[in-house]
């Protein structure tokens, strides 16, 4: 199993989620993060004080999948999250040793 972590643009969340649902992925965990990268932030002005807001709001998705689904998931995310403009984000793949469903105690790919 793998844990796929994708950093995407917030307004793409619905699209990515729907695309993943469409290929049969039902479980996703999402959190709000701040990204620093090549995409540059903006400037805010408060009574003459200028602050550079150098982080960009991003969404982090975590998806645990069985090994055979990895390629398809990655491809789906890539297609649906892409705008072609800087800041589209990253996908990271980590090896997942074990997964357990709390409710039933099932483990392995049954749990996800």
């Amino acid at each position, binding site marked *: 199993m793998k844990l796929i972590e994708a950093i995407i643009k917030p307004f793409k969340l619905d699209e990515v989620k729907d695309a993943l649902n469409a290929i049969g992925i039902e479980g996703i965990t999402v959190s709000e993060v701040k990204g620093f990268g090549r995409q540059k932030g903006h400037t805010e*002005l408060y009574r003459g004080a200028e602050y550079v807001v150098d982080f960009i709001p991003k969404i982090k998705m975590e998806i645990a999948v069985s090994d055979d689904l990895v390629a398809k998931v990655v491809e789906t995310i890539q297609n649906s999250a892409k705008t072609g403009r800087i800041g589209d984000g990253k996908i990271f793949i980590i090896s997942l040793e074990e997964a357990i469903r709390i409710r039933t105690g099932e483990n392995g790919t049954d749990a996800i």
Partner: protein
Amino acid sequence: MKLKLYLASIMLVILAGLIPIAAMAEETKEAAPAATAVTTPAATPAAPAAGAAKPADAAAPAAAAPATPPDVKPVLNTGDTAWMLVSSALVLLMIPGLALFYGGMVRQKNVLSTFMHSFVAMGIVGVQWAVIGYSLSFGPDMGHMGLIGDFSKFMLNGLIIMKDAASGTVEWALFQNYTKEPGAIPELVFAMYQAMFAIITVALISGAMAERVKFSTYCVFVLLWTTLVYDPLAHWVWMTDGWLFKKGALDFAGGTVVHLSSGISALAFLIFLGKRHGFPNERMAPHNLPLTLLGVGLLWFGWFGFNAGSAIVGVNTSDAAGGLAGLAFATTTIAPAAAGLSWMIAEWIHSGKPSALGFGSGVVAGLVVITPAAGFVQPGAALLMGIMAGLVCYGGILLKAKLKYDDSLDAFGVHGIGGTFGAIMTGVFATVGATGLLAGNFKQLMIQLIAVVAAGAYAFIVTLIIAFILDKTMGLRVDKEDEIMGLDQTQHSESGYNM
């Protein structure tokens, strides 16, 4: 460094200014007998017979009464009283308004602390005023020097006249604003109206202290400053026997007494307080601007009480709720509207975007600047003053970035500079009930300058002393660690939000 130099020069100017003032004050004292003539309507250039009106019970005029007795016996006017009751409530509402305005601008970790700066002033000054403040400000003059009231109105004594203790029957001391006509309001209402002014003035200063001042020290400061700075200044300017009043200084609703004094005191306090940890590099963006804008709304709303309510002391006017109030209401609508726009446009041109905080700040600047002039100028002049207000105060806050002092919420930049500017402009634009420079009266402008320098110098010096003593005794600031954690947690054991 820069700040120190800047302040040193301010003080020099002020001290230089003090010499002629002292001289003039001398002269005034000698001219005292003539000053009584000042209260006759034709010649009175400014505000009215605060103490003079006190003797409601014509049978027993206080022997120590400083001014001429009324020409006609005062009679309660319910319309005027209704308006003054409302005005008092409106000014009280400005204090939560200020709490919102300031509280939205600080970082989240200091929101409650900043709210408390305004709220606790309601507690401390609310009590102080009833016990002693009103008497010091509006009591009969102590020692005939025009500097401070005596203790005769301790605990609002004499405002309720007991007729028959057994049955609880009473009579009410009346406050008559114009001695030629009988219209009057209960003096208790006047005392409460003035209470709200005292509260908000000291709360304004807190803008400079936000995010680092120690709460216990702040509480002591509030008490000391109100007693030692505000009460005397109110006596000087608004009491018939105050020396600046006698000089003919114009201050319709508190440009000098409220805004200039609080703004300049903020600067004085800053010398000992110092900058916030991380200023000016760290991002210290306002945490909740909708609260700040709501604060602007409540301030504007309340300011109608502040300014139009001040018609109560208008010269030649027997009505608190009459044409003069209407004029003050109109200028208090027009000037902030214009100032909001001019600040916004200045910012739009100067830094590329018209910000909401900028518009709101402009509105407050316009309100500050029109305050001393509200009932003395016509709508056209209010429009001009409003436009200038936005520009001048926008400049005022840019000064901070230049001089690198840390007036967290621009108490000096807006109230100090705006208050001074407004007080001076009143001497230029006055045409209603008084005349200024444009109406050919150069002398009025001079008087305004004297009032500005005198009040500014007094407030600056006394605040410096208070701040110095508090610094050496209680300490002005919280620990650096506590400042980083936030004052809400470290001073009050609370969090503003648990969301």
